[in-house]
């Protein structure tokens, strides 16, 4: 359907039937036509004009290789493109606009100056294959970042190649595999706690390992006895998150690492929760052999509607030869790429890593310095505990006690009244707050994982508590308003079954 002059509000009034309007309390947000449904005769001219003889060069290519049917791209003016994507952006919740306590994701404020730095032409308009001598600034940043991360985590060396946390996990397990193979040991299993993030088992499987699940104990920590019963010489690696996904510090970590090492296994640190530990303690000192960082969580790379992030991997000495290649070295005040790495696992992606993300984290670490980094974790922990204590009157906290940078509460009391975590999550949207992570970790029923981050103020946290109190009253007095939520977002709850049964995954011009 075409809506040529589509001002969003006009379209809304045209498109929505009256029933929808009764439910939609906020009519200012509305349907945006697809870019394909917009039409204008004049499409933007940002390329120089053709001179007329260009088509003659097509003769150098045999007909068989040429495109016969034009790609059906939209044909719209620059203004329409601007209005279209601006309109879409306004339908998003984001850290810049909303409190976003999405547990495990560390949705902190990302300083704007980092965007400006990454956008400088001296960093954005440089080619990965330009001569080392013409890219000393970029190489210096990569080299120093390897050093900074080694220092912060207590590891010996870092690669900056992985593009995200899961990519870091892949890197780490491939390193573990190469290490065991080089020693001639046959290892087939990876141990993973039942509270772990889905990427941990998915990565282990991707590398051909059998996944063995380790139970959590009554305190929400890795059950050491269960772990010991599953440890044998076939274990390549234990993957752990610390603090774990319940936001709890794994107190037995030193003994756990020792036990895994005793069967010649390696211990892998999923660094998604490093925002709790900056300047407080270091995974390297806990006995971890391999760690990944999520620069898009701890080190202020904005989450970009889903990415890009960056997932650098650090290792201890014995694993350095297996790191992906090339690493950046410093020799006589010059920076250069390592030329040979015979035992390296190879490469996980083209070039050297998400430089545009890494540079943000590099500048962030420089801006904060050592005191600033520690202040991050202190405030993240204080904010989380403050919320936990204030909310536990309303919500069950199954593994209660002091938490680190996040905590998991359960909507079990609410469920007895017929309202689930999902409903509360949706109702929060009506109040302009992004929902916490729900139904994860899997070991908590009706889980709501709350991570306020260090950048939020006490006022915001107090408001969040007040909103949840209000929702609590609604559950008592008018549960329908919660069960039917959200009401103020551009659309209400969606038919996911329809989406999966009759997939409509692209526009087709019919």
């Amino acid at each position, binding site marked *: 359907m075409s809506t040529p002059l589509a001002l969003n509000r006009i379209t809304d009034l045209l498109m929505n039937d009256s029933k929808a309007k009764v439910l939609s309390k906020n009519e200012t947000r509305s349907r945006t036509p697809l870019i394909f449904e917009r039409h204008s005769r004049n499409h933007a001219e940002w390329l120089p004009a053709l001179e007329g003889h260009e088509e003659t060069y097509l003769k150098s290519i045999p007909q068989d290789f040429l495109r016969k049917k034009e790609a059906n791209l939209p044909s719209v003016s620059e203004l329409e493109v601007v209005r279209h994507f601006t309109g879409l952006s306004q339908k998003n919740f984001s850290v810049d606009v909303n409190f976003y306590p999405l547990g495990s994701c560390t949705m902190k404020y990302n300083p704007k100056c980092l965007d400006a730095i990454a956008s400088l032409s001296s960093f954005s308009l440089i080619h990965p294959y330009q001569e080392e001598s*013409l890219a000393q*600034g970029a190489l210096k940043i990569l080299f120093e970042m390897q050093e900074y991360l080694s220092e912060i985590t207590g590891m010996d060396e870092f690669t900056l190649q992985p593009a995200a946390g899961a990519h870091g996990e892949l890197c780490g397990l491939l390193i573990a595999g190469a290490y065991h193979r080089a020693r001639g040991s046959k290892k087939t299993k990876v141990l993973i706690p039942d509270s772990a993030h889905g990427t941990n088992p998915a990565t282990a499987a991707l590398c051909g390992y059998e996944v063995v699940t380790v139970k959590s104990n009554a305190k929400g920590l890795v059950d050491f006895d269960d772990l010991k019963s599953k440890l044998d010489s076939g274990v390549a690696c234990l993957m752990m998150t610390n603090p774990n996904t319940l936001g709890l510090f794994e107190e037995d970590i030193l003994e756990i690492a020792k036990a895994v090492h005793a069967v010649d296994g390696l211990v892998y640190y999923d660094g998604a929760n490093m925002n709790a530990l900056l300047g407080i303690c270091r995974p390297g000192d806990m006995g971890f052999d391999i760690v990944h960082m999520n620069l898009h969580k701890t080190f202020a790379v904005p989450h970009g509607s889903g990415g890009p992030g960056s997932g650098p991997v650090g290792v201890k000495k014995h694993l350095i030869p297996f790191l992906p290649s090339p690493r950046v070295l410093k020799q006589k005040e010059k920076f250069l790429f390592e030329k040979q790495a015979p035992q390296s696992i190879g490469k*996980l992606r083209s070039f050297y890593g998400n430089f545009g993300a890494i540079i943000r984290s590099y500048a962030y670490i420089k801006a904060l310095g050592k005191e600033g980094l520690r202040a991050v974790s202190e405030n993240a922990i204080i904010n989380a505990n403050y919320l936990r204590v204030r909310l536990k009157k309303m919500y069950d906290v199954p593994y209660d006690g002091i938490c680190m940078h996040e905590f998991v509460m359960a909507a079990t009391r609410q469920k007895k009244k017929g309202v689930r975590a999902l409903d509360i999550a949706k109702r929060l949207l009506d109040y302009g707050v992004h929902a916490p992570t729900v139904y994860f970790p899997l070991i908590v029923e009706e889980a709501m994982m709350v991570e306020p981050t260090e950048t939020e103020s006490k006022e915001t946290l107090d408001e969040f508590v007040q909103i949840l109190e209000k929702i609590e009253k609604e559950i008592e007095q008018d549960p329908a308003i919660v069960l039917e939520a959200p009401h103020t977002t551009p659309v209400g709850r*969606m038919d996911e079954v329809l*989406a999966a049964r009759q997939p409509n995954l692209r526009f087709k011009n019919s």
Partner: protein
Amino acid sequence: MQYISNTDNDKKVMLEAIGVSSFEDLVAKVPKSLRNFELRLPKGKSELELLSEMVEIGRENINFHDYASYLGAGNYDHFVPTVVNALAHRGEFITSYTPYQGEASQGTLQSIYEFQSLICELTAMDYSNASMYDGASGLAEAALLALRSTGRKKIVVPVTIHPEYRTVVKTYTSCLDVEIVEIPMAADGVLDFEILKKSIDENTAAVLVQHPNFFGLLEDVRAIGEEAHKAGALFIACVNPISLGILEPPGEYGADIAVGEGQPLGNPTAFGGPHFGFFTVKEDFLRKMPGRIAGMTVDKVGRRSFVLTLQAREQHIRREKATSNICTNHSLCALKGAIYLSLLGKEGLKKLALLNLKNAHQTYDALLKLKGVREFSRRPFFNEFVLHLEKDAGNLKASLEANKILGPLALNAFYPKQAGAYLFAVTENRTPSDQQRLLEAISAS
């Protein structure tokens, strides 16, 4: 510099509310032995100091405004219209995350749906996912899909594919029981078709091809695809998106999976990342695709809306049974790609491809007239080509630098036997005066 909102007094009040007397009480569970260290890092800086220091570091890099770039090999100096960043860098896009709460993420979800649609139009494939990390990891995931889908153990990889991409495929499969069969290059710079035919058998899961290949040359894709299909193997094409303005798209020549590097679509090179990989399939492989997919549906009152769908493939639902481990992807880079393609439009895409074709061929013709410049292949090419330069490498490098030229890329870094061969990329950004300087630099060396 710190970005913390709470004052010391706020913290005091909060610690009291928590019921502890100091922050130290909150980390009492951390073993004492782990607490004995101090970070050896510099002191923090103000924004003013930080910016001036970063600008200084940046001076140690030559950028595309300083020198004219003839470097390609997967990353290209294409023009990015101002609108792309003006829109993609809006806070609402840049500071939101994966659209798990669909009602609060309709902007991201619709833009992913549009991205998928645009990429399908470009490639003439049936379905696209929401993005991969880059072209190389996308190619590796395509190989994994083929292994899963066929239950076979062999991947056929011509050496005419980008050497880094080949390494990534090897690395991704290094812990699996998989055989990688390399196909050598024929004398004219494309894969050796006779050896390819002999190398494909009933245990071949997939044949991979890059088109145009690493040397910029067109591979005989249709014939290669037919060979793969005869043996029941999947045919996987890795393509340059801009080339599809004039070249036949992979969906038309029989590719089962088509992937590629999205950097040319509105993303700066940024020393190699972040960009995005696109990943497309034919209908049969939809439910085996890695990564996120957005779909159109209706909300409870029938309004058109967008949602993450077919999630039963993904790690957060399926854990060790997922089709991939990917979680965070390269959404913002893909959004830039969608905005770029929207700005380009039908006519723009073809025009852009023609400008690249023309510039590359003009430069090629002019270079070939110079003394000491020799042909590498007579095969057709798009915007990249290889030439032999009978020059002293050191002199050549010095002369290029003196004339403010970045590139071309010496092939011997990746192909030791190809000493003296250089890969040139020529985009719409290269001007006649750039070309003049390039010719002078090469003549003078």
